[in-house]
């Protein structure tokens, strides 16, 4: 009895780690899969921080460094899209039958979602290292301290988890790569409906009220304040992102049940 209780969590974790290892192995053995996810954030970093740097000179723009301002967006964007790309892998696995085989081999199927989550979070190490390195090489100034930086990367990690759970929910319902746009487009849109180029106070027109209620705005504002060494709204940001994780976790688990029922 005790043995079973002990073996349960171990077996659960072992299944999750197996799924994560397989995901990472597939990812890094196929350059066509991981290179775009690395190139896109760098491309956006170059286009925004390089091309729009003069926007930081606008009279009403009062952030200390435009590259750092953009870096916070790029970091959250890259982390979020890494979660979405993991959703693509779930859909692809189900499309070619691997998903069903993994389900047959696992007693508690939530370990599958956990495995992809571990994989998606692990790939962030490479993404973060490259994006941060390029931003620093491009002259980014970090005003915050070690704890502030940990806070920024914590927000990025949790946004990755939320995005993974969202896209997993879709992937498990549709079980086909043709659902790719349904995973990517909403995330892309919600990211760009946040204050991407300038602080929220400088947004004009319809986008200002939209950005106010957009949860990504809270994450961005907190990350930017931490980067500047003047933390504000950090607790709100963490509450928002944990709320998103809870919501998307429920969405993903319901999707998993549908995949189980589909057989």
């Amino acid at each position: 009895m005790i043995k079973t209780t002990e073996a349960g969590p171990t077996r659960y974790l072992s299944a999750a780690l197996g799924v994560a290892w397989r995901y990472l192995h597939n990812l890094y053995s196929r350059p066509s899969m991981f290179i775009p996810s690395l190139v896109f954030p760098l491309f956006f970093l170059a286009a925004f921080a390089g091309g729009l740097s003069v926007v930081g000179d606008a009279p009403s723009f009062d952030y200390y460094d435009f590259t750092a301002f953009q870096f916070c967006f790029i970091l959250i964007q890259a982390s979020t899209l890494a979660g979405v790309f993991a959703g693509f892998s779930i859909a692809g696995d189900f499309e070619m039958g691997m998903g069903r085989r993994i389900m047959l081999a696992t007693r508690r199927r939530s370990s599958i979602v956990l495995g992809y989550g571990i994989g998606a979070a692990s790939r962030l190490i490479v993404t973060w290292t490259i994006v941060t390195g390029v931003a620093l090489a491009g002259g980014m100034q970090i005003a915050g301290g070690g704890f502030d930086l940990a806070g920024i990367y914590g927000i990025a990690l949790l946004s990755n988890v939320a995005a993974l759970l969202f896209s997993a929910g879709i992937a498990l319902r549709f079980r086909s790569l043709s659902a790719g746009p349904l995973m990517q487009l909403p995330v892309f849109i919600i990211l760009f409906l946040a204050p991407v180029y300038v602080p929220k106070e400088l947004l004009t027109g319809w986008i200002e009220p939209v950005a106010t209620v957009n949860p990504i705005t809270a994450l961005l504002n907190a990350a930017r304040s931490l980067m500047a060494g003047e933390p504000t709204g950090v607790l709100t940001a963490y509450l928002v992102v944990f709320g998103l994780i809870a919501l998307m976790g429920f969405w993903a688990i319901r999707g998993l049940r549908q995949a189980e029922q589909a057989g």
Partner: protein
Amino acid sequence: MTGASLTIQSEPVIGLQIRALATRSVLRMIRSPATLVPTLVFPIFLLAVNVGGLDSATELPGFPTDSYLTFALAFTFIQSAIFSTMNAGQAVSQDIENGFFDRLVLTPMRPSALMVGQLTGLALLGVFQAFLYLTIGLVFGADFAAGPAGVAVLLLLVVIISLGFGGIGLIMALKTGSSEAVQGMFPLMFVLLFFSSMALPRDLIETTWFRTITDLNPVSYLIEALRSLMITGWDPPVLAAGFAIAIVLALITISIAAKLLAGRMDR
């Protein structure tokens, strides 16, 4: 009588082929909302986001207008033209993949009809998109300094640009015969767009390396020609540069595509 029927059978045949393929190209786009809707909506979405987010850029000394909407509207036309690259390429590559192209080769269809038919569809879509975006821009308060004659020039330039980028899509499709390869072009086309003077005038770009790229990027000159009609009115050197680049691009890409098409039909 014999002469008349000969005229009916031989002379207009190419016209009929072009019309049939152009109609097919247009209907195919209309019947495929998954392709058409993002092509129409995505440029408007990015326009709205950029206008809301970058309006404060108009406060910068030297910014050519006090309306960022007027400034950014030109980018929308180029973006839709770049989408036409994907649409044209995707349509032809699917024809190759699903065997339609092979069946077409067995008919008396001329390669030129296939090419012109596909490009006519693209040009019509380009005109429709240009009207749509211009109407949206004007309704939301954008200026159009060149007046009604400028609208005609803008439409002409948009059509030529669409043909030029459509030619790139055709080249990719005919060269690879794979819709996946055509899709793979998308990030590259996006790079061309983002590394141009789409968001700021070139003389206001501070970062030297970025400014050098925008100077070398032909898309900058296409955007600036369209933008000049809205902000300046008539600016002959800027318009000449835009038209020259668009025409050269269209001639080069369509010639290469025609050659590849003839080669593929000979196989």
